[in-house]
């Protein structure tokens, strides 16, 4: 039967296999953050987990939103909403690269007959005050993973060094299922195939239209300011509440990204906002660091 190819690994199974694999590598599998964020890194477990000396080992799937990347469902390979599988391990085991490659093998990716490369990509996120050295991992020219040894988070030097592995799940599915278009990816097979397109094409289309055409600059700008203000207020409490403050920053960053998608920010305004965001994020990181130390 065409619909039930025996060796087809569905999108759902990819997640399942990765969770299982990293669980066996002593990672705690947690759940995604329920806030619109641009990447798995923004999850508070990664952000706070990367800071300080306490060992961390976690993995989770995270829905990620990048409004500027919307293509009205037209691009075979680009989405404004997609899924990442995120692993954070601190301290970094010496065999971390091999652990990662093994995870690809378990996904049935043939390492011998595909061209897998580690291409220099020193990741940084100015709003999070984060940076690190690492690679994009390519398979036959397509980036499927970002692999980073964090050096800084929230402007604080990491010690010990955490490693972050971020799998682009759609890209991996494209390869494993040998599809040319994201929307053809098989998400699940129960009786009939459910494709990525059936589940998310409408979502891509509507959000692209909204992000680029109908989002209201004034409203987004106000929401941005409100969230940043609230985070500041929370941080100024006699005993600041770091998690709520951090979450408001995440909301703020999302509205900032929406404004960016509309090219509503001049260069300096944009830079000013980024600096503003970073300074509050740094404050949160520092408080967390001091708390953990005491």
């Amino acid at each position, binding site marked *: 039967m065409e619909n039930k190819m025996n060796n087809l690994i569905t999108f759902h199974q990819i997640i399942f296999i990765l969770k299982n694999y990293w669980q066996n590598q002593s990672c705690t599998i947690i759940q995604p953050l329920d806030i619109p964020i641009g990447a798995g890194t923004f999850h508070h477990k990664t952000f706070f987990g990367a800071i300080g000396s306490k060992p961390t080992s976690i993995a989770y799937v995270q829905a990620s939103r990048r409004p500027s990347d919307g293509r009205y469902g037209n691009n*075979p390979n680009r989405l404004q909403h997609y899924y990442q599988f995120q692993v954070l391990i601190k301290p970094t085991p*010496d065999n971390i690269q091999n652990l990662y490659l093994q995870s690809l093998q378990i996904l049935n990716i043939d390492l011998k007959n595909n*061209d897998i490369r580690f291409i*220099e990509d020193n990741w940084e996120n100015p709003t999070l005050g984060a940076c690190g*050295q690492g690679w994009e991992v390519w398979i036959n020219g397509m980036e499927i993973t970002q692999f980073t040894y964090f050096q800084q988070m929230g402007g604080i030097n990491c010690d*010990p*060094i955490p490693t972050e592995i971020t799998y682009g799940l759609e890209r991996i599915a494209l390869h494993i299922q040998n599809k040319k278009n994201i929307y053809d990816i098989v998400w699940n097979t129960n009786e009939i195939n459910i494709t990525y397109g059936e589940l998310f094409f409408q979502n891509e289309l509507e959000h692209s239209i909204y992000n680029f055409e109908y989002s209201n600059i004034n409203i987004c700008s106000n929401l941005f300011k409100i969230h940043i203000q609230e985070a500041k207020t929370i941080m100024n409490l006699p005993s600041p509440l770091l998690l709520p403050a951090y979450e408001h920053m995440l909301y703020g960053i999302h509205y900032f990204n929406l404004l960016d998608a509309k090219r509503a920010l*001049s260069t300096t305004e944009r830079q000013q906002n980024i600096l503003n965001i970073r300074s509050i994020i740094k404050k949160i990181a520092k408080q967390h660091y001091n708390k953990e130390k005491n």
Partner: protein
Amino acid sequence: MNKTFLIEIGTEELPQKSLQNIAKSFRNNVILLLTKNHIQYKKILWFATPRRIAIKIEELNTNIITLKKKYKGPSISNAFDALGNPTPSTQHWIKKLGITIDKTSRIKNKKKEWLYYEHYTNNRTIEEKLIEISIFSIKNSSVPNFMKWNISNIQFSRPIRNVVMLLDNKIIKAEILGIQTNRLLYGHRFMKNNVINISHANEYPEILLKFGKIIADYNIRKNKIKIESKKIANSFGGHLKIRDQLLDEITSLVEWPIVLLAKFNKKFLDLPNEILIHIMENQQKYFTIYDHNNKLTNNFIIISNVESKYPKNIILGNIKVLNSRFSDAEFFFKKDQKIPFKKYQPLLKNVIFQHSLGSLYDKTNRIKYLISWITKFTKANLKDCIQAANLCKCDLITDIVFEFPKMQGIIGMYYALNNGIHKDIAIAIQEHYLPKFSQDIIPSHPISYSLALADKIDTLVGLFFIGKNSTSGDKDPFSLRRLVIGIIRIILTKKISINLFKLFKKSLNIYDNNIQNKNAILENLKKFVLEKMYFIYIKQKYVPIIIKSVLICEVPYLIDLDLRIKAISKIYNSNTLKSLILIHKRISNILKLSSEALHEEINKKLIKKLEEKIIISLLEHTQKKIQLFHENKDYPSILLELYNLYQPVCNFFENVKIQDINTSIKTNRLIILKKIQNLFFIIADFSYFY
């Protein structure tokens, strides 16, 4: 004894853009330290792949020279007292050397005997030396970005996971950057993934090739990639234009290069080829292929790192990625052009050019003002220039330039052409960013270089105006040096006879006519330009004093300065110049002694001697001729005219005593000399030559 030494540092994938530099600087450090330690060797080889850098030294002389230092102490008669105890001077001597008396010996000649001490400064083994050299060399290799990866706090470009160190067949046991040395090499990560036991340093790198599927020699790999890629392209009549930088990058990404041919969807060839090439070369690391008319084809070359059983899958995967990247570019290209190109201009108001210098829209207006003056000297069509100025920054807010910033200007040109704008104007939009770096080309068309000048002048003057003109040391955050060199090169290449200092002033006045420190800013700008002029001529190997002698005249017409420097350089070392220097010096020396202003005209009534008469009539004649030559900027002829004064001036000095008792006569004679000296200033300050 001669042995072979091998050190291989096994790493996680090193950055492809820095691999060669890291490996070569590692080798250079080793060479430096071998020399410093007087260790002889015949040959030193370097190796580099994404996962290793290595050094092999052949015929290394392991008998290291131990340097003896000899110290002579007090004579024996002064060294010990009557009881045989060391005297204070002996105690002082051994204390200074940090030794005890039992370490000393005696030395004598026919007459006398002294205390003596011999110190071996280098009593370490070759192994110890090599460890020391290796650690220092790797730690000090030029790594662009150091990182940490574990608790050891050791830093390098990427994590170090293995170190092999052999002297012939023996492991040199050590801990290098946190790793215990061994004799295990690692084969190709995907094709072999094996461990190779290397028994002798001589076996490197062949053993890696034989058992590990790794070409460790960088240049062999590079050549293989180049030759095989060319062969494939030529096989169907295509040809490559391989940039060396890209070839290096690709060589640094693979341990076992396999050349594959692929094709992207032909429809994308309708997109601006610059974008296609940018994506293929810079982002995807492919080689682009051209047909016999030099037109980009839809064929491209992938350099894979594995020899797959199913190369087709690798090819198809790469094609898939490339097509989707191109479809992204196509998306932007279509989206951007939904509105007419000129409608982007008002949107420039949203984009800040520089804090306190306004938006890009403001900049556009300033460019328009400047270009309308510049066109008087470049003879470009004013209307076209204004249109080019209006459009030149518009592409900066298009989606495609937002996504591919390197495409600025190029996209503007395409969008202008697609909107039916005249070709010369469209090209000017692209070319006004030229020259982008020191060896880059100069804009070709008068519209292009008029626009390039206006844009660059506005940026330069604007940044000086707001005090962002710090270019001290390596700090030049706004690339002002490159900017001003661009301005100079355009003016000189295109021979634009424009008063640059006046242009600065006009540019500055746009902001406010009443800027308080206006003169200081203009002075700084003038100084900055002349400094860079100096630098440009120095680079072209012109003689420093010639450049200085001309630049000191602070002429605002750069082509005028250029002609003078070239005219003098042509006669440098000739007798002509020597004679000119001589008379100039003699005249200056005399003028230096007088304190008079010497502004008056020559008073012919005060002439006493024949030589005076001769020189005055010659002077009048020469003045007229030089004035004419000066108008035509014919500096070689001016130099010749000056040279004609040589003999008469000599005669004048020989027969006429300047210091006459009659002060009026004396002053008159000084005035004659002053007038002659002034003629020299028309070309340069000759006092620089002596």
